[in-house]
């Protein structure tokens, strides 16, 4: 071969050699724990979208100046996390949804937090029980909860008026009356639906409807799915049937996709929706983009009339390979303690007052913080409706429940969501679909719980 080609290969080899030597440094963790908390703390799965996050993080920085925070911004990506764990590069602390957390905990990827709680003196009673339950597996706690998103019902008062009704006429505990309401408020023009009466938010809210009917989708110990329980079947049949008034699921969904959901021409402004249950952060959106929309709020209740709410949120967890668990523990505690939330709420109140928009509060999962935030910081805003929304949401927190901790979260979700979709597409009856889902879910659970042994 000619000299030139050898030269080329030699250059490649040289580059490879340089690669290996020059590259090492950034990955090294240089910190040693000194007295007190210090060193590097790498955080994965968290980002800093607003003052609620930045205020709390800054507060941590002030309290622990010796800790070098390294936040890899962005929501948790499972590919990213798993490859990091696989190679021993797990972050020191991770932020993820509570539902996901149990799947990792069961597989031994996360540390039980008993020692952490004791050494840092974390008072677990300050957090809402429903949230703590979601991160407790076999009696061990694996996460420190953050955020408690509840559901309330939003109604279009203009549509109600047109039908000669008011908000007080809506009775969520009476399913027959919901069906009637749906008929009354659905509007069809030229064979196409132009207003949906009652949107049950399937498939996402199946757990909510099941709970309204008195059952959960999983047993409390998280080991047995309960999908084909007759009450779940009944709930699904009821909720699915609501789509018929709009001409069937496809027309329903196609129409729903046209809504300007986050915009100033949203479905309440355009009179495209009568009533639906929704997570409380949407109240924020409405107050931002359409504060004058004709809406009113009421709690979601079960068939007995008790307010209930399906709750979601996140938590801080410490991966087994964490190189700085002490700092991680301190971080989790500091981010979720009452004072942190209160400071964030005060900043939010200040910013909102400046901008002239309403402060709809922070739903933190911390009971002590809630008392102060909703007792003192949030003042009547002058907008009666929004004040009512806040009241409803706060009340809903007490009736909150979450899907019990279980190891097959994603697969379980796939099983029942697919079942709901099959029913909505008319491919199967509710009983058939849920029977199938039950079998799939049970198989997944059995397999997953094996890891716990």
């Amino acid at each position, binding site marked *: 071969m000619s000299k030139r080609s050898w030269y080329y290969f030699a250059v490649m080899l040289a580059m490879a050699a340089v690669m290996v030597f020059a590259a090492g440094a950034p990955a090294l963790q240089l910190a040693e724990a000194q007295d007190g908390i210090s060193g590097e703390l790498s955080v994965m799965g968290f980002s800093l979208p607003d003052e609620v996050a930045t205020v709390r993080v800054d507060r941590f920085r002030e309290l622990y100046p010796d800790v070098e925070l390294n936040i890899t911004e962005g929501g948790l990506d499972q590919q990213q996390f798993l490859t990091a764990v696989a190679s021993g590069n797990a972050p020191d602390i991770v932020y993820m949804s509570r539902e996901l957390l149990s799947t990792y905990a069961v597989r031994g990827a996360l540390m039980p937090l008993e020692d952490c709680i004791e050494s840092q003196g974390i008072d677990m009673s300050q957090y809402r029980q429903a949230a703590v339950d979601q991160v407790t597996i076999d009696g061990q706690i694996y996460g420190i909860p953050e955020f408690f998103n509840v559901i309330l019902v939003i109604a279009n008062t203009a549509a109600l008026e047109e039908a000669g009704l008011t908000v007080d006429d809506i009775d969520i505990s009476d399913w027959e009356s919901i069906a009637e309401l749906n008929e009354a408020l659905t509007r069809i023009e030229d064979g196409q639906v132009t207003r949906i009466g009652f949107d049950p938010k399937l498939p996402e809210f199946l757990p909510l409807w099941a709970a309204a009917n008195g059952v959960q989708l999983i047993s409390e110990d998280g080991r047995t799915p309960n999908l084909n329980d007759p009450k779940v079947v009944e709930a699904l049949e009821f909720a699915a049937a609501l789509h018929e008034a709009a001409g069937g699921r496809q027309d329903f969904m196609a129409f729903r996709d046209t809504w300007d959901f986050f915009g100033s021409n949203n479905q309440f402004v355009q009179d495209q929706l009568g009533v639906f249950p929704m997570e409380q952060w949407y109240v924020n959106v409405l107050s931002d983009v359409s504060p004058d929309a004709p809406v009113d709020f009421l709690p979601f209740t079960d068939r007995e009339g008790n307010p209930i709410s399906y709750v979601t949120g996140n938590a801080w967890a410490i991966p087994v390979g964490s190189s700085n668990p002490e700092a991680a523990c301190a971080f989790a505690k500091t981010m979720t303690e009452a004072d942190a939330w209160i400071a964030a709420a005060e900043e939010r109140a200040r910013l909102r007052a400046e901008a002239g928009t309403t402060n709809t509060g922070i739903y933190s999962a911390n009971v002590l913080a809630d008392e102060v935030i909703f007792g003192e910081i949030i003042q009547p805003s002058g907008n009666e409706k929004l004040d009512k929304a806040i009241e409803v949401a706060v009340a809903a927190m007490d009736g909150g429940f979450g899907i019990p901790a279980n190891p097959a979260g994603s697969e379980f979700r796939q099983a029942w969501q697919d079942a709901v979709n099959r029913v909505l597409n008319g491919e199967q009856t509710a009983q058939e679909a849920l029977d199938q889902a039950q079998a799939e879910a049970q198989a997944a659970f059995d397999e997953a719980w094996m*890891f716990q042994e």
Partner: protein
Amino acid sequence: MTRLSRRERRVTLQQRERLAALAFISPWIIGFLVFTAGPMVASLVLSFTNYDVINPPKWVGLANYQRLIDDPRIELSLYNSFFYAALHVPLMMIVAMALALILNQVGRAAGFFRTVFYLPSVTPAVAVGTLWLWLLNPRVGLINRALALIGIDGPGWTTDPAWIKPGIVLMSLWSVGNTVILYLAALKNVPIELHEAAKIDGANPLQRFRHVTVPMISGTIFFTLIVNIISSLQVFTEVYTMFFGNMRSGTASSAGLFYNIYLFRQAFEFFRMGYASAMAWLLFIIIMILTFIQLRVSKRWVYYEGA
């Protein structure tokens, strides 16, 4: 210097050629040994294990492959992927060829149009998926609005299970630019002299296309055929964004479940890396068989001047 016999000289030439060839190929060989062979073998081994990435793999023998047979979603997702490929590949090639032929005729104006056609394939996949979700909306999306202009009542692209895959094919055609560029390059490589000679012999444009152009670019056509089949069986990002991302909660869970999406879910959402590896090897074998059939058949219609 002793004179080598003829035979000895030929042998030495052969050896030298072989050495030279290997030298040219050596970068690939190194890369293959370090970055490809190892991981491929690893994934094969993993397919015989239960591996959740967090804990060490556990040997389970053929259990994953048995599962492949029992799992109804395997058949479903394979069907979805093949259906899509069967629609997408021919359409893509025809449209790309048509555009390339037209571009070839318009001289310098082609420059601007080339860029226009290539733009979509440069857009981030996430944006493409989101964009097309809106475009394909049965009520307000541009596609159905355009169809309405010519009196057609557009179907439910994003809601009707029967139309979800065609909708995705439509979206994929938007990225035809890649193939157009390839065909255009190939068309330009056809020697003018051949066309001139053919014209002198009295051939009309259609005959020239069939007998001059197509053979000369058959190599490229063959290439795009194979590559498009392989990649269309591995579609992922746009479809995931449209139908499986956070916002969509599985609206198209059956009709839109492509093989690679199901594979990804098994690997990273259900913690079944072993099963995902088995799925990957199944697809691998299918694609290999398909490709080698095509390679065999190609000897009949692909023309190589210098082979």
